[in-house]
């Protein structure tokens, strides 16, 4: 009886997926290392700043970042960000957001354009498109997803997003038909992706002089997007370390107390 049970369990454990190139399945994500992986991981500040630059100059043309506010960019005391307050303010001021109605109650100017004002720290990153329909109309019917949570919203997290972004535009293998208007990405389900290859060598010029290879741009933008999805990661790891030590101490003391109380039982 027991042998049968074990055999059954072993059978399941040894099942593997078919290994011939199966175009209906995407490739598993690339195995890339991140500064924030593991229990002691932190976000590399320089990578965050470069990654933000990549988002701003490349991705934000199509992808919104709705849940991140400009004040979230502020680092230092109590902040989870990677810019100083004056820097964050300056970044905010470079964006325009819809203004409140004027005294007459108009929300558009004489030419029918919406009234805009410079963004402040309390504002969120404005979206590139007014609504879903506008986004689809500008992207051949496809909706570029908001990126605020993209790293947590996809199986494989940062590995997956990195693979998608670097795998987009890979050489099409023999026998695979790419749908008209789409691009080949072996890491994407179905392998046809609507997004054109987003990154090229030197798409951006990093202010710290780091060479802007596709790999570097991808690595940095995914670091930034991971931060956007999980800004509290560093605080969580920090607090967690203290909590684990405390719980070990408390468990140890309780264990000794338990042994002592029970030493006279029977």
């Amino acid at each position, binding site marked *: 009886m027991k042998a049968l049970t074990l055999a059954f369990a072993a059978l399941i454990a040894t099942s*593997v997926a*078919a290994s011939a190139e199966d175009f209906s399945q995407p490739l598993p994500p690339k195995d890339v290392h991140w500064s924030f992986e593991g229990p002691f991981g932190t976000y590399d500040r320089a990578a965050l700043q470069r990654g933000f630059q990549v988002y701003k100059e490349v991705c934000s043309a199509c992808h919104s970042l709705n849940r991140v506010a400009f004040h979230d960019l502020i680092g230092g005391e109590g902040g989870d960000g990677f810019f100083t307050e004056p820097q964050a303010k300056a970044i905010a001021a470079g964006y325009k957001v819809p203004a409140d109605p004027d005294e007459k109650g108009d929300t558009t100017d004489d030419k029918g354009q919406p009234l805009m004002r410079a963004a402040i720290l309390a504002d969120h990153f404005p979206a590139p498109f007014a609504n879903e329909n506008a986004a689809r109309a500008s992207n051949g019917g496809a909706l570029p997803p908001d990126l605020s949570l993209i790293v947590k919203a996809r*199986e494989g997290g940062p590995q997956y997003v990195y693979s998608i972004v670097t795998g987009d535009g890979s050489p099409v293998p023999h026998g695979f038909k790419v749908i008209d208007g789409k691009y080949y990405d072996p890491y994407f389900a179905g392998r046809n992706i609507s997004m054109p290859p987003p990154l090229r060598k030197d798409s951006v010029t990093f202010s710290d002089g780091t060479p802007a290879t596709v790999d570097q741009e991808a690595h940095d933008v995914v670091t930034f997007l991971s931060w956007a999805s999980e800004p509290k990661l560093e605080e*969580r790891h920090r607090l967690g370390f203290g909590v*684990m030590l405390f*719980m070990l101490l408390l*468990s140890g003391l309780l264990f000794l*107390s*338990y042994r002592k109380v029970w030493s006279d*039982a029977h």
Partner: protein
Amino acid sequence: MSGPSTYVPKSGFGRWMDSRLPLMRFAHDTIITYPTPKNLNFWYAFGAILTFMLGIQILTGIVLAMHYVANAGLAFDSVEGIMRNINYGWLIRYMHANGASFFFIAVYIHMFRGLYYGSYKSPREVIWILGVILYLLMVATAFFGYVLPWGQMSFWGATVITNFFSALDQIVPHLGSAIATWLWGGFAVGDATLNRFFSLHFLLPFVIAGVVALHIWALHVPGNNNPLGIDTKGPQDMLPFHPYYTVKDSFYVALFALVYLAFVFYAPNFFGNPDNYTPANPVVTPPDIVPEWYLLPYYAMLRSVPQKLIGVLVMAGSLLTLVFIPWLDTSKVRSTRFRPMMKQFFWLFVIDCAILGYCGSQSADATLNLGSFELPLVWVARICTLYYFGFFWVVMPLLGIIEKPKPLPANISQPVLSPAE
């Protein structure tokens, strides 16, 4: 079992309160002097662990409710507001989400313990049934709670589960649809559904707390079972709950909390599904709708039956079966330690539940590669479902008749030659 109360108030105020509302006497009798068998092992700590987890869930839940907005247009954003803006909001949210998973880990261990040691047998049948009721309340609470963040899985999980009721149309025309519409408050899962689920999710934990009180009261009448499954013979077999079991339970609670907190701080999304970080979209169905892990075995059973109504009845039957266990098991011996045949079937049952869980986690058309052919997992689920029901309805009644149990020890206090199992 415990005899008359031995509480003596130590102060004037103590005497005054004792004659008006004997709270201290009650505490004294139920958790200080309460006689407990002295041979309880690690598996008996999960009652205390469950109480601890209920407390954590209520505390974190009440705090989350200060910031959460139960409106379809705002719910997802309010949860992200908790994660990003509220001081320690991320911590409280992750404690609550992982708390649910660890609550279920604890309850499953607690239930398996009850099965193994025969704690459901006379005279503890009502404790067991109250426990089944508690489990069902937990499942309902967890289901309502998972809908609240209004992610893709929240929405589509709610849609799938509430659609079960429409299967009743096959028994009474229009009945199932009427019930589903009534549950939804509309023609599909929507804002009305979300609001009422929030209300119920807030209510049920307090109902659980009340039933827990009944569960513990019912326990205190006959007293605890023990790993040997034999009745305690007298005070020589017992120890007062305090300090022996207060300290022992505290230790195990701390260990459990350590593992729980390790997940909260270092793998907070391990038990979750990434699709729930995408806001609910009624027009886009995720490729694989899966419930949370603790409901996967039922999901597997449901999907193993091709006919919708029968599938729902099988799933309901699997839960209802639990109520009858005290009467299905015909053996006079409580503890599986002394039931060599039952032991095999028990562990097979545990593995069976795990396999069912695995089947539930895979997509409906998943297969197992056996080299020469692909075995659809749905057949694995069918076999496992058959065993699930067979274990309770065939094995339990039969084994009491045909099994030859090992000789039972005379009592708990006598030093036993081979005590450990």
